[in-house]
């Protein structure tokens, strides 16, 4: 074990705060280089955390030696480590991508605010995955929301400002509901520590806690953009610059889902069964409605954003299927990781296609197959994960989900999963088909830096290859206190 002040868990929060501040002072050029180096270091820290976890098991780190209730505890277990790893991997690839993307003359102005805000976003997200008490989670959730809204507005266009404002209002109302829930829980039990709350809630369940659980879960579902709270997501993710869309769609919505999962498995385990059917039904509605809208979308990034709405639906299908054997939980976390990698790749690829064609419509893609073949290949690979074809991690997640549904005899969900896969194939092939058409005479293509294409490819390949290493991920996930 390393010394307390060198604990990787604490540095995963401090480091992004440091480089965010420095990137603001240094300006976009040097800020970008600093961010990439720091993110590589963060990835190493997350790997060290995972290695320690496998060696010594789950643990609690008291920040600065001050334990709860007055100090802050960081909780390191399998679930938080898997999400920390996903976050750092996606972030480092997107940082290299963003450096190239913002070098483009049209996007240079956006870079000034991108790097500091991205740093604050990652600090908030890492802190959220490590927090062990409900109030600290509220603070990280709010910081994450504010940084994400700032990133949506980074371009300063009218559509972006409107999307950012809508996102902010939803985000603030949702975290307000969460905070009221925390207040009621504290009033009932006199503690906000997740570990202490578990047995307390199981022993005694006043009416106020039912209300608190409802408020907190609905607030978090709104932040995760679960149907019918999804209305803010397509404009926010569809209008932001490509690296921002990728960060938001791949990671930020997963943070609030992680929190739903934590509460559902932890303190609110005894309430969960009541709402599980409803959560599953909303997830199914999200899959069908999101995929349908993606099939009809005219603009490429809107299509990818609607696909996020649909794929988030799968995450909520696990709740009616949660059993002691943990199949559904594994499916949910695999889907989180698979979608995180694949969606980052899809938005990165969409960014390249838009830079190359200078247009943002699906129709305008005609002829890109010959110009940016690597990017199109990346789009197709990520599409394999989104559709859930073998050997991708998306396939593994959906397979486990079907397995869990079979075991509990709930056939209805299987139909939804299969229908969702077919619809996903529909909207992915819609893009690919258009890309292979002949380019119209008058169309012009702009050269795109190679690193943008490669980063999209690396993320997409990771999402497919992860399917072969699913066992390691599941083993890591199994480490609980």
């Amino acid at each position, binding site marked *: 074990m390393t010394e307390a002040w060198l604990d990787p868990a604490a540095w995963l929060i401090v480091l992004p705060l440091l480089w965010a501040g420095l990137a603001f002072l240094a300006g976009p050029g040097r800020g970008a280089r600093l961010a990439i180096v720091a993110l590589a270091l963060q990835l190493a820290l997350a790997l060290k955390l995972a290695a320690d976890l496998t060696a010594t098991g789950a643990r609690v780190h008291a920040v600065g030696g001050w334990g709860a209730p007055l100090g802050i505890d960081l909780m390191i277990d399998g679930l938080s480590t898997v999400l920390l790893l996903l976050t750092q991997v996606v972030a480092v690839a997107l940082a290299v991508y963003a450096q190239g993307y913002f070098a483009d003359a049209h996007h240079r102005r956006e870079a000034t605010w991108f790097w500091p805000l991205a740093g604050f976003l990652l600090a908030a997200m890492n802190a959220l995955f490590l927090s062990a008490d409900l*109030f600290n989670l509220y603070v990280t959730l709010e910081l994450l929301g504010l940084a994400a809204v700032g990133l949506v507005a980074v371009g300063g266009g*009218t559509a972006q400002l*409107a999307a950012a404002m809508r996102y902010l*209002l939803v985000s*603030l*109302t949702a975290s307000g509901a969460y905070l009221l829930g925390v207040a009621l829980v504290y009033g009932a039990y006199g503690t906000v520590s997740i570990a202490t709350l578990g047995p307390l809630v199981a022993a005694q369940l006043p009416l106020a806690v039912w209300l608190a659980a409802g408020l907190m879960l609905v607030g978090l579902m709104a932040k995760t953009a679960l149907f019918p709270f999804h209305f803010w997501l397509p404009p926010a993710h569809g209008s932001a610059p490509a690296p921002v869309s990728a960060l938001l769609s791949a990671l930020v919505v997963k943070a609030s889902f992680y929190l739903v999962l934590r509460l559902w498995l932890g303190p609110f385990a005894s309430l969960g069964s009541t709402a599980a059917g409803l959560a599953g039904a909303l997830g199914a509605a999200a899959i069908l409605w999101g995929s349908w809208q993606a099939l009809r979308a005219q603009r490429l990034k809107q299509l990818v954003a609607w696909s996020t709405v649909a794929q988030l639906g799968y995450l909520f299908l696990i709740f009616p299927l949660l059993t002691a054997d943990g199949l559904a939980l594994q499916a949910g976390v695999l889907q989180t990781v698979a979608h995180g990698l694949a969606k980052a790749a899809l938005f990165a690829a969409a960014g390249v296609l838009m830079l190359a064609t200078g247009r943002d419509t699906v129709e305008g893609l005609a002829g890109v197959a010959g110009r940016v073949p690597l990017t199109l290949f990346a789009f197709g690979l990520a599409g394999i994960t989104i559709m859930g074809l073998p050997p991708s991690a998306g396939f593994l997640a959906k397979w486990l989900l079907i397995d869990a549904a079979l075991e509990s005899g709930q056939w209805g969900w299987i139909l939804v999963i299969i229908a969702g896969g077919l619809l996903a194939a529909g909207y992915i092939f819609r893009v690919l088909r258009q890309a292979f058409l002949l380019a119209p005479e008058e169309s012009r293509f702009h050269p795109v830096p190679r690193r943008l294409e490669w980063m999209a490819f690396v993320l997409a390949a990771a999402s497919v290859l992860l399917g072969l290493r699913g066992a390691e991920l599941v083993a890591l996930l199994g480490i609980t206190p």
Partner: protein
Amino acid sequence: MSTGLLYALAGVVLFALGAAGVIVLAHLLRKILAFNVMGSGAFLVLVGLAQRTGVPDPVPQAMVLTGIVVAVAATALALGLARAWHARTGRGTLTEGEDRD
């Protein structure tokens, strides 16, 4: 009914009023003010419920102080966005035709 519980109930009423305001009101400035009413309601519940026994509890007070800092930051960002929106479009609302309220 103890004073603490009375505060908590007033907090719930304020929260509900604020939440309704954020959803129903059209003007951005009103929405932002409503959000602050909502947050204050939640703070009142937090402090009020914890004081039912008559002994002040420092933990929720520390939480409310942190919460106020977060709410100030959120309000500043919301106002900044609303100003940028007004400067660009000349409108105080997100949807057209609702400027009169």
